[in-house]
């Protein structure tokens, strides 16, 4: 067994133990972090693997969250097996539609245009009857997992919900890992490296990018769905550009193009939020300062630190 796999399994084992501590506060905090980790992995498919820097990924997170709230009846539980695929499908479809527009642009334009479309989605939920205004909507009853009277697990139970989220995280991780090894995934990585060359070899890259964009939207939708279930209410803030900025931050913190890194990025981000947050209500000042300093003094990002340490330990010898 190689060291990397061992490390992943140890990490998973630790996550499995969290609810056993009985600390409800930490279980909820980590559940929330796991949701963000799924969100970050979905964005990493675009930023880290396909080279598409989307600054509007919160839109798909928010669309799925609103879809759950709108599709659930007011005073009874919706079926999990209906609302979850529906919410995810809707967010993927919205991403597909937006992708038709934004993927016509590149570079700086792409960053701005994805942001603008996310803002459009924000206003859709903020201003129209779809969203219930700036106060948002409550999800009064969590979806039920029951199938014809049999209840395999209960999302109202905090422990069950935690394990359900963890299972989704593992599934999304395995799914993305598998896809990235497929011919499709190799094309995405090729597009990131040299899109022009991919085109001259006969790849209609627009279609591949569109598929990746929709897929990332759908996976972001899983996170949005879980968020709505955990917190029981949705607001337009879920689609705000700060949300898009934060998830991009997680992906970058974890080192782009690395799924475990995206998960770690979500943990580092939540950790910073919690630690700085206890120091001062102006914790974002420290966060912002750390980001600015990191870009100035650590070109290549935080993710480059392990590589640097490794290189300095090896004495810069290996040049294979």
């Amino acid at each position: 067994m190689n060291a990397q796999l061992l490390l992943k399994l140890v990490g998973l084992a630790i996550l499995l133990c969290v609810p056993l501590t009985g600390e409800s506060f930490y279980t909820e905090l980590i559940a929330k972090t796991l949701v963000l980790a799924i969100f970050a992995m979905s964005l990493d498919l675009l930023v880290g693997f396909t080279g598409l820097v989307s600054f509007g990924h919160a839109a798909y997170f928010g669309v799925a969250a609103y879809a759950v709230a709108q599709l659930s009846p007011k005073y009874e539980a919706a079926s999990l097996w209906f609302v979850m695929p529906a919410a995810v499908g809707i967010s993927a479809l919205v991403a597909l539609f937006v992708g038709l527009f934004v993927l016509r642009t590149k570079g700086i334009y792409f960053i701005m245009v994805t942001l603008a479309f996310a803002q459009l989605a924000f206003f859709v939920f903020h201003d129209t009857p779809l969203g219930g205004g700036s106060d948002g909507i409550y999800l009064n009853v969590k979806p039920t997992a029951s199938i014809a009277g049999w209840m395999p697990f209960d999302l109202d139970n905090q422990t069950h919900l935690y394990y359900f989220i963890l299972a989704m995280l593992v599934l999304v991780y395995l799914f993305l890992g598998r896809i990235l090894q497929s011919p499709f995934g190799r094309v995405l990585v090729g597009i990131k490296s040299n899109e022009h060359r991919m085109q001259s070899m006969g790849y209609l890259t627009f279609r591949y990018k569109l598929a990746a964009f929709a897929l990332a939207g759908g996976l972001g939708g899983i996170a949005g769905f879980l968020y709505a279930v955990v917190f029981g209410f949705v607001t337009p803030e879920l689609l705000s550009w700060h949300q898009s900025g934060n998830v991009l931050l997680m992906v970058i913190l974890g080192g782009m193009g690395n799924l475990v890194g995206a998960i770690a990025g979500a943990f580092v981000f939540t950790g910073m939020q919690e630690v700085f947050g206890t120091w001062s209500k102006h914790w974002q000042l420290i966060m912002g300062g750390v980001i600015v300093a990191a870009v100035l003094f650590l070109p290549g990002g935080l993710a480059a630190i392990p590589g640097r340490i490794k290189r300095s330990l090896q004495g810069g010898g290996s040049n294979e």
Partner: protein
Amino acid sequence: MSDNHNEALLVAKKITRRFGGLVANQDVCVDLIRGKVHVLLGPNGAGKSTCINMLSGDLPPSDGQILFMGKDITGLTAAQRSLVGIGRSYQRTNIFPKFTVLENVRLAAQSRNQQPWRIFSKAQEQKWALDKARACIEEAGLGKKVDWVSGVLSHGEQRQLEIAMVLATDAQVMLLDEPLAGMGSDESAKMVEVLKRLKPTRAILLVEHDMDAVFAVADTITVMVNGQVLESGPPAQIKASVAVQQAYLGSEDSFHV
């Protein structure tokens, strides 16, 4: 169709490209015939790259028509042209520097049978693509470096890799932009052999400055000056042409004999 050995695969009819007020190519006509190597000669800035870019679809022509096997392909993008069988290499090396040699060429091979919906199969288990990639790498003379990261290869080896990538796309028409640039004489000679081997079944357009190589492989030579065709014909005719002598071959700086 392939039984016709003098079949014109790619025909450019009076293609013109303007950049604002500047005319980079004017009424250029090129015929690429299966089994023949067509060399494009000309001093720097004569418009050779613009011409090859229009043929490959990297640059839309402002005017004129491009036919592939009799069909009008003027409106097709580079990717679409690659899919019908027109492959190209680039003057400035254009590869995936972080991928291995094998992965570069495997991606090229995969383009012929993309199967994007098979998202749960492993690319590394697609034997046909791997086999084809290895064969093309061998053909281009890079057999010993299959598993090297392509970014660390020498310049000449990266040119060979480009050829392997074009080969892996089954291109019937190969547009090669200075494939010998920066190569040592050994490597050049090897590449000329590769070109000769490829020639019978394909139509090749070659932009090249190395005159030994040009006269070793050319069946037709087109000389361009200032974006226009000065003269086009068999090598003997070009050598004898007074106009070419005056405009191009005479000037010592651009004729490396």
